[in-house]
Structures are given as C-alpha cells and as structure tokens.
C-alpha cells in the first residue's frame, strides 16, 4: 500500500497517450467514412445477392445517402415550419435530454449495482442467492419490460410528487446499467489474493476496514471498465425506452420521427442515427474522466 506522488513524466506521457488515442479515434472515423463511400461506389445499386438471399444491402442514394449529404442535412432546418431548428440543433437538444435521463439511470444503476456487489462480497449466501437473479434480469427483453414500468409508474402519485414518463425511461436505463457494475465490482471486490486478505485478518482488521482499505481499492481496475460499459448501456437503454414508451424530447423519439422521412429525405434518419452513436461515445467519454482521479489504483485494468 505504499505509493509516491506520480512523477511529472508520467503525467506528460499520459497526455501524449491521450492525444495518440484521440488521433486513432479520428482515423477510425475517417476510415468508416471512406469505407461507406467505397461500398456505395463499388456495390451495385441493387446490392449483392447470392441466389435469393441478399448479402449486401442496396446502395442507392435512398438506402445509403452520401456522407456529405448527411452532413449538409445537419445544417438545414428540420421542417419548413417557421422557427424550426436545424437538424443539428434538434439533435443537440434531444441529446441533452437523453444524456440527462441516461445519467440519472446510470447513477441509479451504479449505486444499485455497487450495493449488490458489496452485499454479495460480504455474504456468500447473498452471492448464491442474488447472482443468478442478476444474470436472469438481463434476459428479460426491454420491450417486454418498458410498458410494465410505464404502467406501474403511471399510478404512483405521492403528494406533490407525480411519476413522470422520463423517470420510467431512467429506471429502464438503470436496469441495464446495473448489470455490468454488479458483476464487475463483485469480481473486483473478490480480487485480493488470499495472502492480502490474511494479512488484514492477522492484524484483526474488521470486515469494514478490509473493505475500505483492501477490497474497494482493488476493485477499481474492474470497476472503471464496468462504469464505462454501464454508461454506454444506459444511453442505449434510455433511447430504446424512449422509443418504446413514446417519451417526448429525446434522441429515441427523433430516430422514429426522422425515420418517417426515409424515402423522401434519406439523409435525415441517418442524422438521427449519428446523434445516437455520438451520444454513446460522449457518455462513455464522461465516465472515462471519472477514472482520471483514480489513476493510482489502475495498475492492471481489466476490460
């Protein structure tokens, strides 16, 4: 448990590492754009078929608009109605809404998952009792769950507090975010070696002391990837739940609304899909920031 302040060189090299990974990320985006346009140029408009089965989808301008058309569409007004925002503006607004709902779901999921993990680490009985349920919970399809949650929520009204639809969405997002945290953190809490645990026992450290000084720090390398994964699943969960429950204001709604223009204005639905993808990246990126402060525990990150 000894440590020295991180040398300045380490900070510089981590900055360089960050710059390099940002460069690679940009290169990946460029590669994707090039790949998209190459497929569009090479594959015939009707797609590739082996017999009756379609191997590659259609590549005409309706099915696969040019990347620059999608980008241009971002800057144009959403509809011809007076005062309509640009597609980009609408996306940013919707993204902000979904990000906040997903963040609420993420916090809820992380707290719930963390508590479940500690409980399971404390008592083996809890682990045998809870873990199968944790795994089982993820096999319930979201589309089956969403109407139920909305139905239950619709009847909650305590004094001035009335259940809002976005709370159902956040709850569904937390349900997805909960899983990686519970499983990842449990693994982390159980990761100290027998020798380490016995050292604490030999010094008559309480279970709580062992938790705070040994198990929690040891869980960090497992926890951080789990938190990132939870952020991404919270965003996906929020978007799917918005679509499923018909919640207004978020990216999910935008995806469906824009999809109606697929035949007449093909760049528009792709813009919404782009917004959904970027949102997932932003959420995962924000969580990565959380990890910066925990650098000294991250000697062997497991992902």
């Amino acid at each position, binding site marked *: 448990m*000894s*440590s*020295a*302040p991180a040398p300045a060189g380490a900070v510089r090299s981590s900055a360089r590492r960050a710059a390099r990974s940002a460069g690679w990320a940009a290169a990946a985006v460029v590669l994707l754009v090039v790949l998209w346009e190459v497929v569009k140029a090479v594959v015939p408009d*009707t797609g590739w078929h082996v017999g009756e089965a379609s191997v590659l989808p*259609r590549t005409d301008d*309706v*099915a696969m608009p040019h990347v620059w058309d999608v980008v241009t569409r971002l800057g144009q*007004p*959403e*509809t*011809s*109605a007076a005062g309509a925002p640009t597609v980009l503006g*609408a996306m940013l607004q919707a993204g902000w*809404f979904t990000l*906040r*709902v997903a*963040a*609420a779901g*993420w*916090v*809820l999921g992380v707290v719930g998952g963390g508590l479940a993990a500690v409980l399971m680490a404390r008592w083996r009985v809890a682990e045998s009792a809870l873990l199968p349920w944790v795994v089982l919970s993820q096999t319930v399809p979201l*589309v089956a769950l*969403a*109407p139920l949650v909305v*139905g239950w929520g*619709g*009847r909650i009204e305590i004094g001035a507090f009335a259940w*809002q*639809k*976005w709370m159902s969405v*956040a709850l569904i997002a937390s349900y997805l975010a909960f899983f990686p945290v519970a499983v990842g953190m449990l693994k982390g809490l159980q990761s100290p070696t027998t020798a380490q645990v016995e050292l604490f026992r030999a010094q008559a450290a309480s279970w709580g002391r062992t938790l705070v000084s040994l198990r929690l720090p040891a869980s960090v390398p497992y926890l951080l990837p789990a938190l990132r994964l939870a952020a991404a699943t919270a965003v996906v969960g929020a978007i799917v739940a*918005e*679509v*499923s*429950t*018909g*919640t*207004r*204001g*978020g990216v999910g*709604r935008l995806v469906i*609304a*824009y*999809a*109606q*223009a*697929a*035949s*007449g*204005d093909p760049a*528009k639905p792709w813009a919404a899909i782009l917004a959904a993808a970027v949102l997932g990246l932003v959420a995962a990126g*924000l969580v990565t*920031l*959380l990890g*910066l*402060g*925990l*650098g*000294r525990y991250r000697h062997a990150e497991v992902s």
Partner: protein
Amino acid sequence: MRLTRRSAWTATVVGVATALALSACSSGSGGQEGDEPEASASAGALTPVKLQLQWFTQAQFAGYFAAVDQGYYEDEGLDVEIVEGGVDIVPQSVLADGSVDYAIAWVPKALASREQGAGITDVAQIFQRSGTLQVSFKDKGITSAADLAGKKVGNWGFGNEFELFAGMSKAGLDPATDVTLVQQQFDMNALLSGEIDAAQAMTYNEYAQVLEAENPETGELYTPQDFNVVDWNDEGTAMLQDAIWANTERLADDEEYAETTVKFLKASLKGWIYVRDNPEAARDVVVAAGSQLGASHQLWQVNEVNRLIWPSAGGIGIIDERLWSQTVDVALNTRNDQGATVITAEPSDDAYTNEYVEEALAQLREEGVDVDGADFAPLEVTLEPGGA
C-alpha cells in the same frame, strides 16, 4: 502519501458529483420537457381526464388536440391530458388497467384485446372508413385484389394484415400460395426500389411518404398518376379503425364516468368538426403540440384523416352497424399466413354502444353544429420533398 490519496479521492468525488448534478438537472427540468401539454392552470373545478393515443402526436389525432387548443374540453368542465403512445404502448391495455380514462384504438385490435379480457367498449367510431391501401407502380397493373396474383405483396404483420388477406381470399386467391408475401418495413423504400410490387400504406402517412420521394427518372417528386392503389373500402373488406374506447365496467357502475363520457365525446367531436372546417389551423395546432413531421406532410395528414371521417352519415362518431359486422366478420373468418384469426368468437354485446355518442350528437345538433359534413370537400395538398 496522505496528500496524493486525498487528491485522488477528491477528483473522484468531483466526478461523481458532476454525474449527480447532471442527473439532478434532469430531475429538475426534464419533467416539463417530457410532459404533455396541460389544459389549463385553473383546473381546480375541472374533472381530470386522460386520453391515451396510439402513436406520437400527429394529425391523425388532430381533433383531440384541437379540442384542447380551442378550449372545448374546458367548456365541458374537463381537464384533458393527452398521453402519447409509443412503439410498445398498447392503448386498449393501458385503458383496461385503469391508467387512463379513454383510449384511441383500431377496432380489430381492440376486439382481440377484449377477447383476452380487456373490459373496453367502443363509444364513438371517429374514422368511418379504413385508411389502409395497397400501393403499386402503375406498370404492375394492380387495380384490384385479384391482380395481386403472382406478385410480391408487402404487409406489416402484427395484426395490420387482415384487410389484405380478407381481400385476397374474397378475390379467390390463396394468400399462402398465389402471392409472395413480404414482411414490410415502416418506410416505403422497398416499394420504390422494386423489391415489392404492392406495398401496404396508410393514406395519411406512408402513401404521402411515397409522394414526397423523388422520382430518379424525372428528378421531380412522384405523383399519384405514377401509382395504382387498392382501397379496401372498395373491395369490401375494410375494417373500422380509430375509435374512442371507454372502460366497460366504469360505464356500467360509475354514473359520473358515464356523464363524463358524454361530455368528453361532445368536446372531441367538436374538435374534429373544427379540424374539418379549419384544416390549416388544425395543422398548426398539431405542429405546436410537438409533432416533428414536416408541415406539408401534416397538412396532407389532416386532409386525409378528414376524408376518412367526412361525410359522416348519421353524424360523426356513430358506429355503423353494417361496417361493424363487416369488421367482426373479417376478424372472425380471415386467417393470416400463420393461420391465426383476430378473434375466435363473436364479441359480446357491450363491445360497442351508440348510447353516449347519440347523446353528445343531440346536444351538438341543438347548438346548431353541422355533425354530418354532407358537403365536405377535401383540400388539394401539395407535398414538399421529404414532407418538409
């Protein structure tokens, strides 16, 4: 050593606090944005009523939004909250479990839910005609159900296919062997690219989407002259669609609810009459209520929905016995490609009633309102690319 550890934890705490703040933010203001438009602030004496739609805000439901906007509900002493639908929201189930007071649903789907135990009653049949078409390019020569023989026929499934199957059976075709059935997406790209010959489309939505797309041969938008449509109203296998459903048990036991039903119907019908007489204003009401569809698409939708309602022989909302039994007949006897029917037995007598709508219509007639729309004339709507 102490210092580093503390600063590490501080950073973490700051990070967690940021996340918490983000989520607190969403609990603070997210509610208003995700909320439905509330009727009025002075809701003290008004009876709260919730109406569940089948889908997002769009002109298909213009009458209810117009009734809120014009204060018709308020005039009847009601504070109506319109609850939007979603992909997995089944309005008749939401109504049956008591979360809302009324719901908009298609008759066959609601009948199927009734058979599974949902206690709901059709109290007003808003759409008198079916809006479902089978659309094809002119050169395919498909002008009636019989012409579908040997063609690739798109359908949405999920209970939207029964008019099509009944129409084909009626024309002497076996849907299983005489046509190639194709599961259709909710956009019309497969029709435009020729992957299917005849695609399912609602007059007020998908058909407009086709007419908002560019014809690559001319560089202009497609026009109705480029297509043939098979209309199930003409083929005699149409099924009743948008209707207002109420809770059967509460209608029977709760006198106040029965009274509210008449008031709710009266104001809703008045809303639809407003939409008939002011289609452009109705479009603006729907856009203001938060629809993200383009303005020309919305006006088209207002106009087509009006055509499904008007003229309304006997008054808007009356359930036509002949069309009801045609709907029940198709629902009972038509098998889809999985061999399923919509319902397996005749619906019970409380499946529909004209009692409340007749009372509402009588009151409206007394006020001198035209509830039949006998001289209704639709608009000529020009669609913009993408419906913008």
